[in-house]
């Protein structure tokens, strides 16, 4: 089997083990919390018979190992259980929300890369200059920002005072047809901007640092000596090596963004998985929380697997190891 295939197989294997671990932790955490879900899902006026019926309905009367095995079996079949509060399959609840979260985090990730790479390159190629210092300040400030604060600030200034963007939501219910897509894009701007502002800093600073190191390596010095244009040295030779650690960072950032989406979607009333998680915490809807955590874990594991595979494609030393 070719090395790249072995590499891919190993990474998929690691991913499956990581996912199983995340599922198990999620399962145990929610069941080890104080109180039983019956308290959360029904009135305190509930009598003992009703409580028992509810617990039985949601499979909470069986022993923990039995619940665990049944839960794994259900997961394999794509059954995430029933929402306590909405009496709907959890998979239906989450799948209706997932596209919005993917739109938001996907857009934020793309914007982070599209803005981050040129900024990082500019900072690295003007190291210690005014531009570099400005980028470093922006990067550090961005890392220090708290998504809800940024979100409220944007809503206040850009939404309320300047009236440039709508306050919350993903679309206007009174817009139809082709205009709807533009409306969705307009509603996406502020939440996406909030996420980008918070995640851009670490990306730019990491890229700047790794690119400065790359450009000082012998192969770049040789390229310069051979008369290779500066643009080619930076973008073809230096950047390809500098992208290796930043590619890994992207995978981690996706996990951060998906988690950050909980706060962002709550502030912007964006109808994604993150907001569903927030509302499920309030409603103590354990099956939805459980399903959402599994979904998030799957997203992060897959994203990291893909970045590892991309890393292997970029760096032959990794895939041949």
């Amino acid at each position: 089997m070719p090395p790249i295939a072995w590499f891919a197989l190993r990474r998929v294997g690691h991913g499956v083990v990581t996912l199983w671990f995340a599922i198990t932790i999620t399962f145990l955490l929610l069941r080890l919390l104080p109180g039983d879900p019956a308290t959360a899902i029904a009135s305190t006026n509930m009598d003992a018979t009703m409580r028992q019926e509810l617990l039985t309905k949601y499979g909470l009367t069986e022993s923990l190992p039995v619940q665990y095995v049944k839960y794994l079996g259900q997961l394999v079949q794509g059954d995430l259980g029933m929402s306590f509060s909405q009496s709907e399959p959890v998979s239906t609840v989450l799948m209706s929300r997932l596209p919005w979260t993917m739109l938001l985090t996907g857009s934020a990730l793309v914007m982070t890369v599209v803005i981050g790479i040129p900024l990082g390159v500019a900072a690295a190629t003007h190291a210690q200059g005014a531009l570099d210092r400005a980028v470093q300040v922006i990067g550090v400030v961005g890392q220090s920002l708290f998504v809800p604060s940024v979100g409220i600030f944007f809503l206040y200034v850009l939404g309320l005072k300047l009236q440039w963007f709508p306050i919350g939501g993903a679309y206007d219910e009174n817009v139809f047809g082709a205009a709807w897509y533009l409306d969705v894009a307009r509603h996406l701007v502020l939440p996406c901007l909030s996420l980008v502002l918070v995640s851009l800093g670490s990306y730019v600073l990491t890229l700047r640092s790794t690119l400065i190191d790359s450009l000082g390596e012998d192969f770049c010095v040789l390229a310069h000596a051979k008369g290779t244009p500066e643009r080619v040295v930076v973008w073809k030779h230096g950047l390809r090596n500098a992208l290796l650690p930043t590619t890994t960072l992207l995978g981690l950032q996706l996990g951060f963004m998906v988690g950050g989406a909980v706060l962002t979607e709550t502030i912007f009333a964006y109808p994604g998985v993150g907001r569903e998680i927030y509302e499920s915490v309030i409603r103590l809807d354990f099956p939805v929380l459980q399903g959402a955590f599994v979904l998030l874990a799957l997203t992060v594991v897959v994203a990291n697997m893909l970045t590892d595979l991309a890393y292997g494609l970029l760096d032959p030393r990794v895939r041949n190891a």
Partner: protein
Amino acid sequence: MFKVYPDVNTEILALKKGDVDVIANALPPAQVKDLKGTKGISVAEVPGLGFTHMTYNMKRKPMDNVLVRQALAHAVDYEAIRAVAVQGQAVTANSSAITDTLKEFANPSLKEYSFDPQKSKALLAQAGVKDLKLTMIYSLQDPVISAWSSMVKDSAAKAGITIDLKGMDRNTYLAKTVEGDYDIYAGSFAIMDEPVSNMSLQYLPDGAINYSQVNDPKLTKLIQQAQAAVDPEQQKTLVQQAAAHVHDNMIDNIMYVQNLNVAHSSDWDGFVVKPSELLSIVDPASLANARHK
């Protein structure tokens, strides 16, 4: 059309911008003052149907002693809590389980326990209790109670009572409440609109929200008689007697009734605001009565 905003700050910005005409939920105290001063926004205030209270677990010593409970009640600065933590948006409940919002059933003879640390000390001495140390549970999801919990601790300290605050997430709080695993419980009831049912749930031994863990034969008898009464005046008298019994024996420390503040665009009027978070400004009667100016 109903729009759902999980965050209160966002919904207020939406009202200010004009994306929505009315906010259905009651506003947190911290936001009311700002909105009252905003052009184009009207804020209506009504006394709530519920109340905020602390209960002292009567199944645990020394809270089974009425003198200790009264001492605890006199160690709370109710005025300061209403002024500071609730920002003046609450009224006294006269330490009565039947508040003035239910005027027909309220007992006019009941007055709020005074904040008197010296009296607390004297009552504790009379009860033979020294170095009283208690834990108080409350939900961290309630920002108002979270705000005044430290005030309760500080004022109790003036009476020589040590209160260990245990703020916790809602599920843990509910679990401890159901199990009766607390010395002092702090919480709120939003809708207390039917006096007899409410008294039954709160103060009968098997009551679902008997957070005082009370089992008082005299109180039980009064409530059961009120349940069985067919004459409205007789029922009212029994409820008032039961409320007086709860008050005098400090079975439940009713601290205040928080006013509900609801906001809407000044372009609309005619809303009929109900004193209930379940109905508030968006009940059918209110919406049917609303008119665009």
